[in-house]
């Protein structure tokens, strides 16, 4: 028997007394750790996905929408641009690479992206099996897509018009064939179906042209959704967007700028939640203080008896402090676990919907600091609650009636 054991037994002998403090603590820790992880990982995922693209050029509209649709593949496109305009930009000396991307269809809610094979190099996507598309109507599948749709090499499917699953209009006569499946990259590529630009043109020309010339495209009319550009030198960042926005009927959007704007907007929400969580943490500190104060009052006689056993006041203070620390530690661990369970739930959802990968990260520095803050609050609460121990009148307590 020692002080650690005694304080623990004291704590669990009347669990209801400490329950409220514990709940508040768990709630605040869960909120803080969850939000810390979520915002860090969302930011990490966004950064990773926009990093290969310096500039997006698309139809006029909201620049954020353009970035969300063409780079992150989570919004509707702003419209289409003429391929010939895009080709002009491609020849600029400020452009290192320019990759056209084109949308139009989905299969069971998964977007079919028409592009060139160089798109895959942006995200370092490699084939796990099969080969890259060489002809129209051949597709390679992102790793998550293959799993989700349960497609394998050689399988064929018909696409539906639009970007969402609800559209029932199928493009008959233009089946896609799976020729390759990509390795997992942890980026947006995982959740796409990728084909060449001609496939998208073919599927759509079918609707408005005669079948005999369906493979013939009039260069003049060809459109793509947007152009993903990598600059050849840093100066391009200053010149190219201004040129495109002023001198053409297209718009240029810098993904890093737009995403920073978005993250800042989200950051206000994240900060608000963090502040609420910190407030709850402080309230839980107050609650620990009150619950320990109550416990000390209830156990005055026990504490007095311990003094007659030879315990010093400092040992009694330590006893209460340990009880508080147990509470703080249990609260922190439970809160942390619940925060991670929350993150894991969100991760599963985000993985399926957005192709974002979350790691159930090991404890971070911020979380270590939070643990320190929790323990400090607990220690302050316990010490304040146990000040009366030094004024304990042993003789009086032990001679009064129970």
């Amino acid at each position: 028997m020692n002080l650690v054991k005694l304080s623990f037994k004291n704590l669990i002998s009347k669990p209801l007394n400490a329950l409220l403090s514990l709940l508040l603590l768990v709630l605040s820790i869960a909120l803080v750790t969850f939000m810390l992880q979520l915002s860090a990982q969302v930011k990490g995922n966004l950064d990773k996905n926009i990093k290969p693209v310096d500039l997006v050029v698309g139809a006029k509209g909201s620049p954020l929408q353009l970035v969300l649709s063409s780079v992150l593949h989570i919004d509707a496109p702003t419209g289409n641009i003429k391929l010939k305009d895009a080709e002009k930009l491609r020849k600029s000396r400020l452009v290192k690479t320019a990759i056209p991307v084109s949308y139009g269809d989905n299969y069971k809610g998964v977007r079919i992206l028409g592009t060139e094979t160089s798109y895959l190099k942006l995200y370092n996507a490699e084939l796990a099996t099969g080969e890259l598309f060489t002809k129209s109507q051949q597709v390679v599948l992102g790793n998550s897509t293959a799993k989700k749709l349960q497609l394998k090499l050689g399988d064929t499917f018909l696409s539906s018009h639009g970007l969402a699953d609800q559209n029932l209009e199928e493009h008959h006569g233009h089946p896609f064939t799976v020729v390759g499946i990509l390795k997992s990259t942890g980026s947006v590529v995982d959740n796409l179906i990728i084909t060449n630009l001609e496939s998208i043109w073919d599927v759509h020309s079918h609707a408005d042209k005669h079948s005999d010339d369906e493979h013939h495209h009039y260069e003049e009319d060809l459109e793509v959704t947007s152009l993903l550009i990598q600059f050849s030198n840093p100066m391009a960042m200053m010149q190219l967007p201004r040129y495109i926005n002023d001198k053409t009927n297209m718009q240029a959007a810098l993904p890093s700028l737009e995403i920073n704007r978005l993250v800042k907007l989200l950051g206000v929400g994240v900060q608000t939640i963090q502040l609420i969580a910190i407030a709850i943490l402080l309230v839980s500190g107050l609650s620990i203080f009150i619950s320990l104060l109550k416990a000390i009052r209830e156990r005055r006689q026990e504490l007095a008896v311990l003094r007659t056993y030879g315990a010093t006041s400092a040992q009694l203070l330590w006893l209460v402090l340990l009880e508080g620390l147990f509470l703080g530690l249990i609260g922190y661990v439970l809160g942390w676990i619940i925060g991670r369970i929350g993150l894991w739930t969100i991760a599963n959802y985000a993985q399926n919907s957005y192709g974002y990968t979350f790691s159930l990260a090991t404890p971070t520095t911020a979380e270590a600091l939070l643990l320190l803050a929790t323990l400090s609050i607990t220690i302050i609460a316990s010490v304040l609650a146990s000040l009366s121990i030094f004024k304990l009148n042993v003789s009086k307590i032990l001679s009064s009636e129970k």
Partner: protein
Amino acid sequence: MIKTSKLQFSYSSENSFSFPDISLPQGEHLLILGSSGVGKTTLLHLLAGLLPSSSGSITIGSTELQKLSRKKLDAFRGREMGIIFQNDYFINALSVSENLKLRLYFPDKKKDTTRVKELAERLGISNLLHKKVTALSEGQRQRLSIALALVNKPNIIFADEPTASLDDENCEKVVTLLKEEASNSNANLLIITHDQRVKTMFKNHLYL
């Protein structure tokens, strides 16, 4: 060995006590008698170092209590004294054996676990060791508080009205037990009581 001289204590200017000098050689027993309100419990708390005296001195063995720091006094009390209070006080979160082991923790005698078993055997509570203290009957509580006062092999055993709630038969049993235990370890036994039944069982009496 207990020696006091010119011991005085006052709660307030109207409520003050002067106590007769006590000189008790090692191993002797003393019965302190008096009606309620004459300061019997106050004297016991003074002797146990739970109250600081207003004046006078208390010497136990070769130690003068007033000269000890608060911390040393706590340690001294835990090591040298066993106290049976008028009411029994246990740590309710713990079992009987845990209470006894905790009693040994503070004077740093925790290795003495055979002592717990042996004492529980003699007091007839060895079958209760794993019970929670809150589940004990009145008589069992009485025996546990005696065990708690004896388990650290004290040199002085204080008992405040140990027989107040007991019938004649149990009264005699408890006093005999205390006397036996004190004699076994050559400890001083000081019993404070207004119970006339106990009177005949001791030869040294002190009237307050």
